């Protein structure tokens, strides 16, 4: 990990965000194991560097579009983890009063256009936010996060073509974790780098190590700058990996098909652990790191308690919010 150009505050901030994501999801997983969580959740664990690196390159008023695997993006954008956790449990104090759940957390106050249960569904929506920014001349940018699998949906193609034709300020971040559920991207797509598709739209496409938060951040900064300057969209493909199966409860055994050590090899490159090591080696004492972690831990415990304590919504809520006034 090349820390050149980053100061300690920045590194601490990256670490805190990634650690928060990790701990948040460990607790989500616990809820699942204890049978306290309705439905399922798709954990982002292992991919933290992507959301952390990209979101650090954004301004407060920028937009992001997220996916079924959205907790990481939301935490990185600074969403309220109490409301997130309550939503994941289907509680009244969740972001959507329990109506959305893990796959549909939305937080417009943080420019989060929504997680989305339709693979590829949010790509044009984020692109539309970039249209607004261009139309209103606000200097905002939009980021669309999505997976390798989503890059094979038609909306990927249609959105990027329009964004390029009209130089919209949007960054397409492909989180290539090699799989769409059990399907290996290498079995359903014949290019090594999905970023190569950028050529067909006349825009820059870059591949980056998605386990290295600084590498991700550097590329994101370039793309964001280009977008803000009217240079149009960029595809950033982050090579990454998820620690868990597709969702809680999926053992993810399909990943041993090609290489039985695949998971172990990727886990050895843990983005959270690695940044921790770098910080310990070069900048901070173990105690200092533990202190940072303790602060996060307290937030997490609060969120867990908040979610548990929140009541379920009243049945009548099922019928509200279909329309706004």
């Amino acid at each position, binding site marked *: 990990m090349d820390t050149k150009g980053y100061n300690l505050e920045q590194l601490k901030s990256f670490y805190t965000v990634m650690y928060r994501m990790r701990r948040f999801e460990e607790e989500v997983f616990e809820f699942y194991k204890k049978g306290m969580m309705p439905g399922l959740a798709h954990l982002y664990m292992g991919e933290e560097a992507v959301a952390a690196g990209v979101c650090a390159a954004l301004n407060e008023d920028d937009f992001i579009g997220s996916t079924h695997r959205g907790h990481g993006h939301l935490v990185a954008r600074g969403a309220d983890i109490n409301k997130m956790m309550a939503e994941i449990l289907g509680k009244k104090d969740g972001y959507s009063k329990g109506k*959305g759940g893990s796959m549909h957390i939305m937080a417009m106050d943080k420019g989060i256009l*929504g997680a989305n249960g339709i693979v590829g569904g949010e790509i*044009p929506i984020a692109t*539309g936010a970039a249209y*607004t920014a261009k139309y209103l001349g606000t200097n905002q940018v*939009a980021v669309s996060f999505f997976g390798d699998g989503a890059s094979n949906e038609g*909306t990927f193609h249609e*959105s990027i073509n329009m964004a390029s*034709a009209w130089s919209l300020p949007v960054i397409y971040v492909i989180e290539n974790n090699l799989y769409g559920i059990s399907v290996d991207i290498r079995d359903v797509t014949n290019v090594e780098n999905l970023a190569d598709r950028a050529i067909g739209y006349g825009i820059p496409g870059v591949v980056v190590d998605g386990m290295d938060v600084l590498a991700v951040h550097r590329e994101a900064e370039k793309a964001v700058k280009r977008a803000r300057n009217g240079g149009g969209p960029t595809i950033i493909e982050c090579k990454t990996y998820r620690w868990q199966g597709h969702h809680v409860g999926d053992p993810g055994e399909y990943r041993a098909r090609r290489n039985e050590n695949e998971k172990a090899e990727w886990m050895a490159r843990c983005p959270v652990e690695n940044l921790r090591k770098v910080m310990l080696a070069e900048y901070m004492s173990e105690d200092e790191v533990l202190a940072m972690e303790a602060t996060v831990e307290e937030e997490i415990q609060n969120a867990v308690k908040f979610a548990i304590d929140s009541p379920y919504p009243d049945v009548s809520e099922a019928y509200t919010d*279909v329309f706004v006034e």
Partner: protein
Amino acid sequence: MREILYRDAIREALDEEMERDDRVVLLGEDIGWLGGNFKTTAGLYEKYGDLRVKDTPISEAGFVGMGTGMALTGLRPVIELMFSDFLLVAADQVINNAAKITYMSGGQVSVPMVIRTPIGGGRSSAAQHSQSMQAMVSHFPGMKVVVPSTAQEAKGLLKTAIRDNNPVLFFEHKMEYTNKFLIDDEIELIPFGKANIVREGTDITIVATSSQVMKSMDAAKKLEAEGISAEVIDLRTIIPLDRDSIIESVKKTGRLLIVDEAYEFCGIGAEICANVMDDVFYYLEAPIARIGTPNVPIPFSPALEFPIIPSVQKIYDKVKALVEQR
């Protein structure tokens, strides 16, 4: 009062709303230089420029989804889909996304987007360009569904649609675009959810949508000559549905016929039949009836197409049969 083409009434509504609110932005295929396939946006590109009257590539799912993103972030997009059949290409973005985001967010956000699109047969456009998609979208929650009849209705309802904070599906009838209508000089906003009794009558209630309102009026005139008095209700919006007006009318007439051009199976006629059943059952003098397009793909040849589309004659025949069934 003045004379106007239906398509020009649409254009006026767009123009006036764009003048009023610069967050109103149009997107669609060929709406710019060409002024729209049916010329409903003629002159707007010249007046408002490329970014506000945006010619899109042929990417319906993409630009409808883009519209949702625009609506979430402060604009009020009005999207033209060249034929309502193409709603199917964008169906996920319309139904699973635009229509559900408000609810899924627990009411945090709104999606003030209008999708305008033509329905109907009659032009020998065959199976993929002649459908009427109002029943399909009405089946799903989260969208308002508008089916204007005359030019006046189209203008007033479109202006309301553009000011509504929810996704609105606005269905124009392609056979009306070049028809002339009389309209008021200044058009008021026409509220959603309030049906319009366009003709009073005592023997039967005909609830109709879009072009079928005009056809029902023609049928009602012919029926009058036979001593049958038909009340004709222009439904205006399917969602929200003005149940009360229908129920009240049927209580008076004792008979109900619903005429809508979408496919009959699981169509608007079926819905209204089931919807008001509880309230009118004990007043009915004949079974509730409906006329829609029968469930076959729309054929190309005019020799086959015209006979299957709802027509004045079909309405007339059905009413006679219902009234005689005592």
